[in-house]
C-alpha cells in the first residue's frame, strides 16, 4: 500500500485533469499544500568535487539576484529572487556526512561537473545518496568548458556528458553549460538562464520531507554555559512544538525555547504595480559569510570603507536653515535603507561601541534589536497580539458552562462564565475521580423531550396544520422559481464553471483560514517558512561552520530503538562484499549511526536464514539495531567516514521493511553421532548429545544417516556414555554409518548503536583490527580442503555355514547343477590338461596338434563369415538398385506427363487464337 501511495505522490504533477479519481487525488494534494502562500525558501544545494566551481557559482548567483558580492562564503545564503520567492543556497562539502545530510533536505541539487576532468566519484556518490533519500529535483552544471579549444571536440564532449548525465539521473533533467570566467564570476547570460530555471522550478514532493519538519540553521550564537541559539527557517511541513530536537550529526537535545522572530528576508505581500524588485528590496541574508564591506567575526563586526566618498551635510548648513533642513533630513533618513543609515550613524560617533556599552546598557544597534538580550522586540509584540486575539475570541465565545452529573454543558445564550479551553488546559485540578465508565444520561420526563422533534427526519411534519399549508405553498412557489433559475443557469454554462472555480478557491481559502487560525492561536504550531529562534541549553558539542546545521523535530515513535529489517543490496561499484557482524555506518531517516548488522535470506518457508556475506549482485535482508523509521524509507550504508577517495564510499543501499523488538534469524547446525550398538531397526547412538537432559529436549526429533535412512530419537539410554540414546530407523543401519540431526540455531543480533557525531570513536572491523595489530588470519587445519583417498572396500566372499545350509528351506538352498555330456567332458579335459611348464615332449606334441587343429577350425569359420558378409552386401546392393530403378522410372513418367500437359495447353491456346 505504502509503495503505491508513494508512486501516486510522485505522479501528482503529471495527472490529467479529466480523470475524476486522479482529480480527487490532486485536490487532496492541494489540501496537503495548504500553506502554499507561506513557502519556505527554496533550498538549493550546490554539490561538486573540489575545484569544480561551487563557490563561484553561488557568488555569481547572489550577484545576479542582489548585486552584492560575497567575499568569503560560509553557511547558507538566502536571497530574495522575486516578491513571493526566496532561495537559499548551500555549498556541499565533499565529506560523506555532509553529503548525506544535504541530500535529505535539498529541494534542488545543482551538480557541478568539471568538463576538463569529467564525471568524478563524488558526483556518482551524491547521485546514489539522492536516489535513496527521495529524489529531489536535480540540475547538472558543466563548468571549465573553456578547457576545450577545439570547437568540434567541445561539441562532442558536451553531447557525451549530457547523455551520461541523463542516464544517471533517469532523464528529464537539465544540464547547463557555463562558459569561461570573467572577473572571477561566470558570464552574465549563463547565470541569468540558470537563475530563471531555478525560479520557475516546481518542487517534486519528497515524502520524507512532507512528514518531517526541520530547521536549517543560518546562524548560531554561543553564549555562557554552552547555551546556544540557532536561527533558521522552518522547512518541510508545519512544525509542531516538541520538547526535543535532533541535531543531525550531533545528537538529541532538549529545547529551552522555540520562538518566531523577525524574518530577515520577508515575502512582500503588498501588491504594487511593479512586478520586479526595487534595488532596496533585493536582499541577501548570509549571516555567517562576509557580504560586501561587512564582515562578521565571532567576537566583532567590521565595516571596511575604502574611501570617504561622502561628507556630513550638517557641517555646511547655516543655522537659520537648520530647522527646515533637519526636518527634511529626518524624512530622508527614514527613506534611506537601514544599512546606509547605520553606517552614517556610526560615522558620526566619537566613541567606539565598546566604550558606549560600558556607559550605557541599552544600546540599540538596529531598531528592534537589543544587544544585551538579543531578543527582537517584535516577538513581544507578537505574543501580545496573540494574547489580545485570544481574548477577543474568548469574549465572543464566552459560554456558560454547567457542570452537572459528570459532564460539562456549554450553553451559548446565557451570561458570561468560564472558558472551556481554560477549564480543560489551565485548570489543573483533576476533575475525574473514577475510572472511565459509560455516561448514563439523567432521564427527564417523557413530555420534556417533545421539543426535539425537529432533530428527526420526520420532525417538521408533526407541526400544526395551518402554518404548514402556508409554508408548503410558499415552498412550492420557491421551488418553481428555483427551477426557472436553474434553466437560466444551464443556458450559460461558462458562468457555472467560473462559479465552481470560485467555490473551490473559496473552499481552499477557508481551509487556509482554518490553518492560520490554528497556527496563530498559540498552540505551538509553526508554519513552514517562518523564521524561528531555537535556544538549546548545555549544547556541549562543537560546531563546524562549513557543515550544515539541521535541527529536526524528533517524531513520535521514531526516536525509539529496536531491530529493523531492511532489504539491502551492495552497491555495484563498491569493491568488496559486506560481512555479517562487521560494523557499518547507516544513514537512515535524520540519523547516521554505526551498528552491527547481520545479513540473511528468506527460505521458501519464511525462515530467515543467516548468510555470512551479502551476495555480490543480488538483494538480501539485513537486520540491525537502530532507530525506527517508517517503512519504505531509503537508507545508505558506508563503511568508514574517511575522506580518502580511493574507494567508492557508498557501500550498500536499501529500504526499510519491518520493525520489531525481536527477529528470529536461524543458522543451520548439524549434530553428528555414531551408533555403538545396532539391533535390527533399533540403534544406540552416542556422541550427539552431552547429557540425557539434552536428549530429552530432542525426543521425537528426526535423524538421518549418511546413506539416507530416516529415523527418530526415542529415549536416552543407560548404555554407553552420557548423552547416548536409543533411536529407531526405517531399516537396519550399518555400524559404520554416521547419524545426523539437522537443527536450527537462533543467531544473536548485537544491540550496538552509536550515533555519528563530530568526534565519535567508531568501532573497528575485524579486518581493520588485524591490520592495526598485525594479527594474521586464523588458520584452522580442519577447515582446509584435502584430497580424499578412497580405498575400494573388499568384501569377504559369502560363506554359509553347513549347519545353516542344511536348515535352509529348499528355495534358498544351494542347488547341484546337472551338466550335459559335453560340459562334463570339457571339465574333465580342463582338469586333465597339464600345466605348461610341467609338460613332457609327448604331451607338448599333443598340445600343439590340438592348437593347430583349432587354428584350422578358426580359419575356416572366419572364411565362412566373410563369405556370408559378401553375400549380404550383394543382396543389399540388389535391393538398392531395384529401388533406384523404380524411382527413375517414376520420375520419367512424371516428366512425360507434364510435357503432355504443356503441349495440350499450347495447342488449346493456338486453337483459341
Amino acid at each position, binding site marked *: *500500500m*505504502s*509503495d503505491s*501511495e508513494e508512486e501516486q505522490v510522485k505522479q501528482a504533477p503529471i495527472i490529467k485533469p479529466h480523470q475524476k479519481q486522479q482529480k480527487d487525488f490532486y485536490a487532496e494534494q492541494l489540501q496537503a499544500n*495548504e500553506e502554499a502562500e507561506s513557502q519556505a525558501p527554496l533550498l538549493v544545494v550546490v554539490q561538486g568535487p573540489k575545484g569544480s566551481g561551487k563557490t563561484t557559482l553561488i557568488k555569481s548567483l547572489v550577484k545576479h539576484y542582489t548585486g552584492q558580492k560575497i567575499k568569503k562564503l560560509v553557511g547558507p545564503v538566502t536571497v530574495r529572487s522575486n516578491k513571493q520567492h526566496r532561495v537559499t543556497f548551500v555549498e556541499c562539502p565533499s565529506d560523506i556526512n555532509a553529503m548525506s545530510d544535504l541530500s535529505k533536505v535539498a529541494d534542488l541539487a545543482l551538480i557541478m561537473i568539471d568538463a576538463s576532468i569529467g564525471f568524478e566519484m563524488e558526483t556518482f556518490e551524491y547521485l546514489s545518496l539522492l536516489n535513496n533519500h527521495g529524489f529531489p529535483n536535480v540540475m547538472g552544471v558543466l563548468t571549465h568548458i573553456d578547457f576545450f579549444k577545439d570547437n568540434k571536440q567541445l561539441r562532442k564532449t558536451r553531447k557525451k556528458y549530457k547523455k551520461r548525465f541523463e542516464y544517471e539521473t533517469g532523464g528529464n533533467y537539465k544540464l547547463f553549460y557555463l562558459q569561461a570566467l570573467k572577473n572571477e564570476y561566470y558570464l552574465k547570460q549563463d547565470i541569468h538562464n540558470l537563475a530563471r530555471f531555478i525560479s520557475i522550478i516546481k518542487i517534486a514532493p519528497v515524502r520524507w520531507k512532507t*512528514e518531517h519538519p526541520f530547521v536549517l540553521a543560518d546562524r548560531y550564537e554561543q553564549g555562557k554555559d554552552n547555551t546556544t541559539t540557532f536561527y533558521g527557517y522552518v522547512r518541510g511541513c*508545519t512544525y509542531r*512544538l*516538541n520538547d526535543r530536537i535532533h541535531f543531525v550529526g550531533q545528537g538529541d537535545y532538549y529545547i529551552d525555547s522555540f520562538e518566531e522572530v523577525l524574518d530577515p528576508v520577508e515575502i512582500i505581500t503588498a501588491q504594487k504595480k511593479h512586478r520586479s524588485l526595487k534595488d532596496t528590496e533585493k536582499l541577501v541574508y548570509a549571516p555567517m559569510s562576509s557580504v560586501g564591506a561587512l564582515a562578521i567575526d565571532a567576537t566583532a563586526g567590521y565595516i571596511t570603507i575604502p574611501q570617504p566618498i561622502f561628507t556630513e551635510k550638517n557641517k555646511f548648513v547655516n543655522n537659520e536653515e537648520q530647522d527646515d533642513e533637519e526636518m527634511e533630513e529626518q524624512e530622508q533618513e527614514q527613506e534611506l535603507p537601514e544599512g546606509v543609515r547605520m553606517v552614517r550613524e556610526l560615522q558620526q560617533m566619537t566613541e567606539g561601541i565598546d566604550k558606549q556599552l560600558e556607559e550605557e546598557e541599552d544600546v540599540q544597534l538596529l531598531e528592534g534589536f537589543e544587544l544585551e538580550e538579543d531578543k527582537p522586540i517584535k516577538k513581544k509584540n507578537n505574543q501580545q497580539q496573540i494574547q489580545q486575539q485570544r481574548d477577543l*475570541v474568548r469574549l465572543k465565545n464566552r*459560554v456558560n458552562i454547567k457542570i452537572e452529573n*459528570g*459532564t*460539562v*454543558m*456549554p450553553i*451559548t445564550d446565557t451570561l458570561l462564565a468560564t472558558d472551556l*479551553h481554560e*477549564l*480543560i*488546559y489551565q485548570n489543573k485540578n*483533576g*476533575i*475525574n475521580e473514577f*475510572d*472511565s465508565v*459509560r*455516561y*448514563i*444520561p439523567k*432521564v*427527564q420526563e*417523557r413530555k420534556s*423531550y417533545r421539543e*426535539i422533534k*425537529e*432533530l*428527526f*427526519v*420526520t*420532525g417538521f411534519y408533526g407541526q400544526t396544520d395551518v402554518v404548514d399549508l402556508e409554508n408548503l405553498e410558499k415552498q412550492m412557489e420557491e421551488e418553481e422559481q428555483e427551477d426557472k433559475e436553474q434553466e437560466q443557469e444551464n443556458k450559460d454554462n461558462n458562468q457555472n464553471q467560473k462559479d465552481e472555480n470560485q467555490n473551490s478557491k473559496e473552499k481552499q481559502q477557508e*481551509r487556509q483560514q*482554518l*490553518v492560520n*487560525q*490554528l497556527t496563530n492561536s498559540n*498552540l*505551538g504550531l509553526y508554519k513552514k517558512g517562518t523564521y524561528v529562534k531555537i535556544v538549546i541549553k548545555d549544547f556541549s558539542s562543537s560546531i563546524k561552520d562549513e557543515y550544515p546545521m539541521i535541527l529536526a523535530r524528533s517524531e*513520535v*515513535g*521514531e526516536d525509539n530503538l*529496536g531491530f529493523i529489517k531492511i532489504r539491502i543490496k551492495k552497491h555495484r561499484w563498491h569493491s568488496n562484499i559486506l560481512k555479517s557482524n562487521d560494523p557499518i555506518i547507516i544513514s537512515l531517516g535524520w540519523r547516521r549511526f554505526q551498528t552491527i548488522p547481520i545479513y540473511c535470506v528468506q527460505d521458501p518457508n519464511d525462515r530467515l536464514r543467516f548468510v555470512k556475506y551479502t551476495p555480490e549482485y543480488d538483494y538480501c535482508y539485513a537486520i540491525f539495531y537502530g532507530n*525506527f*523509521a*517508517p*517503512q519504505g524509507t531509503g537508507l545508505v550504508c558506508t563503511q568508514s567516514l574517511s575522506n580518502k577517495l580511493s574507494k567508492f564510499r557508498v557501500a550498500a543501499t536499501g529500504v526499510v521493511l*519491518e*520493525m*520489531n*523488538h525481536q527477529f528470529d534469524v536461524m543458522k543451520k547446525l548439524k549434530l553428528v553421532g555414531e551408533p555403538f550398538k545396532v539391533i535390527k531397526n533399533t540403534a544406540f547412538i552416542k556422541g550427539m548429545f552431552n547429557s540425557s537432559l539434552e536428549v530429552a529436549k530432542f525426543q521425537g526429533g528426526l535423524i538421518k544417516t549418511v546413506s539416507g535412512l530416516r529415523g527418530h530419537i526415542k529415549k536416552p539410554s543407560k548404555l554407553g556414555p552420557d548423552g547416548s540414546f536409543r533411536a529407531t530407523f526405517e531399516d537396519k543401519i550399518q555400524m559404520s554409518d554416521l547419524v545426523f540431526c539437522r537443527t536450527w540455531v537462533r543467531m544473536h543480533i548485537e544491540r550496538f548503536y552509536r550515533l555519528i557525531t563530530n568526534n565519535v570513536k567508531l568501532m573497528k572491523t575485524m579486518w581493520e583490527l588485524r591490520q592495526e595489530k598485525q594479527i594474521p588470519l586464523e588458520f584452522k587445519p580442519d577447515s582446509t580442503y584435502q584430497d580424499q583417498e578412497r580405498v575400494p572396500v573388499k568384501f569377504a566372499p559369502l560363506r554359509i555355514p553347513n549347519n545353516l545350509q542344511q536348515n535352509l528351506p529348499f528355495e534358498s538352498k544351494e542347488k547341484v547343477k546337472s551338466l550335459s555330456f559335453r560340459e562334463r567332458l570339457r571339465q574333465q579335459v580342463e582338469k586333465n590338461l597339464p600345466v605348461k611348464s610341467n609338460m613332457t615332449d609327448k604331451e607338448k606334441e599333443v598340445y600343439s596338434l590340438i592348437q593347430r587343429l583349432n587354428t584350422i577350425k578358426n580359419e575356416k569359420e572366419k572364411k565362412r563369415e566373410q563369405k556370408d558378409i559378401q553375400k549380404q552386401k550383394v543382396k543389399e546392393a540388389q535391393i538398392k538398385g531395384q529401388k533406384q530403378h523404380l524411382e527413375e522410372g517414376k520420375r520419367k513418367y512424371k516428366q512425360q506427363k507434364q510435357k503432355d500437359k504443356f503441349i495440350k495447353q499450347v495447342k488449346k491456346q493456338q486453337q483459341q487464337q
Partner: protein
Amino acid sequence: MISFQQVINFREILLCSTLSERPVKIEFSQYPGPHLQTMLKLLQLIQTGCKIDVNTKGIIYIPGIITNQDGMLQTYNCGVDRSISYYLEILLILSLFGKAPLNIELNGITNDQTDQSVDSIINAYIPLIKKFAPEWEVSLKVTRRGFQAGTGTVILHSKPIRQIQATTLIERGPICKIRGVCSGSKVAPNLLNRVVSQCRNVFNDYIPDVWVHTDLQKSQKGVEFQSGYAVSLVGESTNGLFISCDCEYSNELNDPEKVGETAALRLLDEIKNSGCCDTTQQQYALLLMAVSQRKVSQIKLGRISTHTIETLRIIRSILGVTFNVEESVFSCIGCGLINLSRLTQ
C-alpha cells in the same frame, strides 16, 4: 519518561503511550482493581518488547510493537470485573496500528451497567472509527451472551491501516433511523418483546423507522448462564453518524416496560444534548483526531464528559496535541502518526 500522578483513568494513558511508543509512569492513590491487571496482560499479549513494572505505588509501562502474535487466533479471558467492551474500546484503536491482523476471542461480560454494551460498540463505535479510517476491515461478532457471570464470548477480526485520515464532523443531520438490539439470557422470550414494544411506544411520537432486534441466548451444555436482559439503541443520522445508549435490567429498573422506556428516553436525551457522537465515545473521537494525519480535523460535541477533559489533558502531555475549542467545536491538526509496525511487501 512522562509521569502521571494520582490518576485512576489509566486506560487512555496506556493507549496514548502505546500509540506513540513513549514510556509512561503512572502513580495511583489507590489500587484501581483487578481490571488493571487484565488490561496490562492484554496489552502484553498483543505486543512484543513490552515491559511492565508493577508495584504498590504505581506502574512503569514501556510499550513495544503491536504484533498481534502474527495474526494467530488468541483467546483471552476478560474476567468479571469489567465488561468486554471496556477492553474492546482500547483494543479496536490499537488494532489499527498493528503489524498483523488481530484475531482474538474475548470471554467475559457482554452487557453490564458500568460500561457500554458490545452491541453499542458494534453499531456505533466501529462506524465512528470507520469515519476516521474508511479502508479499515473489521468484524466483531457476539457468539454468546454473558450477564454478570461472564459467560459471554466475542470474536474480533481487525486489519491494520497505515494512517488515520483527518476528518471534519460538524453537521450531524437529522436522525433518520433507530436500530437496536434487545438481548437477554435465562428470561422468558416474551419479556424482550415487551421491552421492544415499550421502546417503540416512546419513539412513535418522533419517527416510524424503528427496528429493535431481540437476541435471546439459547441454553448450552456445560455453561451456566445468569438471568438478565438489556437493550442497546442506536440512532443513525442522515450524515451517517451514530448515537448510542444502553439500558439494563437492575434492581431499580426491574420492569421490562421501565427498561424499555428508560432506554428510549436516554437515547432522546443523548440526541438532544450530544453533537456528532455520543457522550461516552467522544473521547475516542478526539483521540483519533489527535493521531490523524497533519491536516485540520474538526468535531462538534454537545456536552463534554469529565473523562473527555481528562483525556484531552493526557493527549496533550503524551502526543503534544492541543485542541482549539470554540463553541463546542473542537479542532486540531493531527500529529501524523504512521503505523510503523505494519508489514509492507
